[in-house]
């Protein structure tokens, strides 16, 4: 998981997924989770933005899209808490409403990557053989290119659209998720319950999805959360570069790209709040991932 920053949480403890089963004295996963400060901090931040994405556009004081050419670049005030941008749009309203697009696209991309990755990883780990070899090579190629650059290539070729962004990120994530799932499956394969299921004559499909999958949901969930953080990172960066979410969306990356040109004039509020919002969301997701990691794979 080397080539990407968001994956840091995945490294060390992955092999010891045995905890939480059997020993009645040991704290349960839920106990660990409940006592995890990072989990609660992350949940709070992500929960806030999720609510903002769902209800924000209806609750904000101003229309996020309404321009007001008489009040361009107004500094923060009682009327405009975060000031206004170059078109006189209220930045507070735009920051709140700006969570919607990124919190639609990034989770969808993650979901696509997780579904495809779980399927591939189960097949690679349980069936082995050719799938395993091909998967290994694909991963090798994928980590040699930064996701942003792969996305640029495909988006330039197909034209920018939300669907393209979801598909590119999802397809790049799939083999990376598959790698984690595969490692978890290899640990399960040797266990008795799999051998018993095989003796019962269950089909490979049933063994993979009904027997093994429920037992590796912990690592899968952690991996998906880490991926979500990375998807947000990527979608935000692509939007900033002009290849992600398109105007007139109040998206944060887009807003920073639109207003970046004027900050040398001292109009810091046109970018500072969007930057803070982006940072809080990615950090929130990562804290959540760290909490889940500590509880589910320890």
């Amino acid at each position, binding site marked *: 998981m080397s080539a990407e920053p968001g994956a840091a949480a995945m490294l060390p403890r992955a092999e010891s997924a045995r905890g939480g089963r059997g020993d009645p004295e040991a704290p349960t996963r839920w106990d660990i989770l409940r006592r995890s400060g990072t989990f609660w901090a992350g949940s709070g931040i992500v929960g806030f933005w999720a609510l903002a994405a769902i209800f924000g556009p209806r609750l904000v004081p101003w229309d996020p899209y309404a321009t007001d050419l008489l009040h361009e670049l107004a500094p923060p005030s009682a009327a405009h808490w975060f000031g206004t941008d170059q078109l006189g749009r209220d930045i507070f309203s735009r920051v709140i409403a700006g969570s919607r697009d990124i919190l639609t696209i990034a989770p969808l991309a993650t979901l696509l990557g997780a579904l495809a990755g779980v399927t591939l990883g189960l097949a690679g780990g349980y069936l082995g053989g050719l799938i395993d070899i091909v998967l290994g090579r694909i991963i090798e190629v994928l980590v040699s290119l930064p996701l*942003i650059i792969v996305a*640029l290539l495909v988006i330039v070729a197909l034209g920018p659209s939300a669907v393209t962004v979801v598909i590119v990120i999802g397809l790049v994530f799939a083999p990376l998720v598959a790698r984690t799932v595969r490692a978890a499956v290899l640990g399960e394969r040797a266990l008795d319950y799999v051998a018993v299921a095989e003796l019962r004559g269950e089909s490979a499909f049933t063994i993979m999805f009904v027997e093994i999958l429920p037992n590796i949901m912990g690592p899968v969930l952690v991996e998906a959360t880490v991926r979500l953080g990375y998807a947000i990172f990527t979608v935000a960066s692509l939007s900033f570069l002009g290849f992600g979410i398109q105007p007139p969306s109040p998206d944060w990356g887009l807003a920073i*790209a639109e207003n970046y040109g004027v900050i040398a004039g001292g109009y810091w509020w046109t970018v500072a709040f969007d930057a803070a919002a982006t940072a809080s969301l990615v*950090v929130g997701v*990562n804290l959540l991932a760290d909490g889940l990691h500590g509880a589910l794979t320890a």
Partner: protein
Amino acid sequence: MGGGWGGWFARRISLSLLTLFLLSLVVFAGGQLLPGNVGRAILGPLADPRAVAALNHQLGADRPPLVQYLGWIGGILHGNLGRSLEFRSPVAPFIGAALVKSLKLAAVAAIIVVPLSIAAGVAAALSAGTLTDRVISLAGLSLTVIPEFVSSIVVILIFSVWLRVLPISAAWPAGADPFEQIRHLILPAVPLVVVLFGYIARMARAGTIEALEADYTRTAILKGLPRFVVLRRHVLRNALLPTITVIATQTSYLVGGLVVVETLFRYQGIGSLILTAAIGKDFPMLEAGILTVGAIYIGVTLIADALAILLNPRLAPGMAG
């Protein structure tokens, strides 16, 4: 070492070549097959069909895919990376010049981040389980996921707009001396440092903890060696080995970060070259740039793997890689 070494190297190089080949297929597919009609993608939906056909013919895009791929990859193998559609001249000089600039920026970032993050990681490991450890780990964990454009904005607002101590653009005036060049590269290096810090620190921490718990460290302590000597000679040496590999694997991330950072700071490196090519639909430039970036990553990881084995012969027997 011995006989296994040559075998390992041959195996590792052939794997790298295979990866490079697959990479070229991906780049080719993205740049020449995915657009469907390259001429149409370049000229836009309103262009005259005859102009589109003429451009496709000129680019060779009207040939079968296999012929196109062989022509493209054959040219590259002969040192011909292609001709830029935008500049109407070979892309190689552009890529060379951009690489030099990006290397300067990457070097400044590396000089800052490597000692800083290793020191932080080792410090966290030495105080494992304490508040210091938790603070370093959490800071690293959080900083790692901050997109470069966000941390760029923060440092620009503080150091260029508010304090006015560092330039807002990385492009230095012509004839600037190395000191002036570095001054222009400090701010752009920060976002890269922010992302890399947590990752390297985490690896250094894990490596140090593992080395601290190892038998050879216990032996060294029981032998009565001073703590400082044990740390320097036994712990750090072994702890830093995995860190080398990690730094190498971060080259790939680094280039992705360069796309954003170089664009923001108006710096003509490989990242902004790729972005400009993407915006201008300059497919030959885009493909050559991406292939170069991937090839560099593959080369760097190969060197790092070899280095890790050279520095730690215990990895060598069996040559598991």
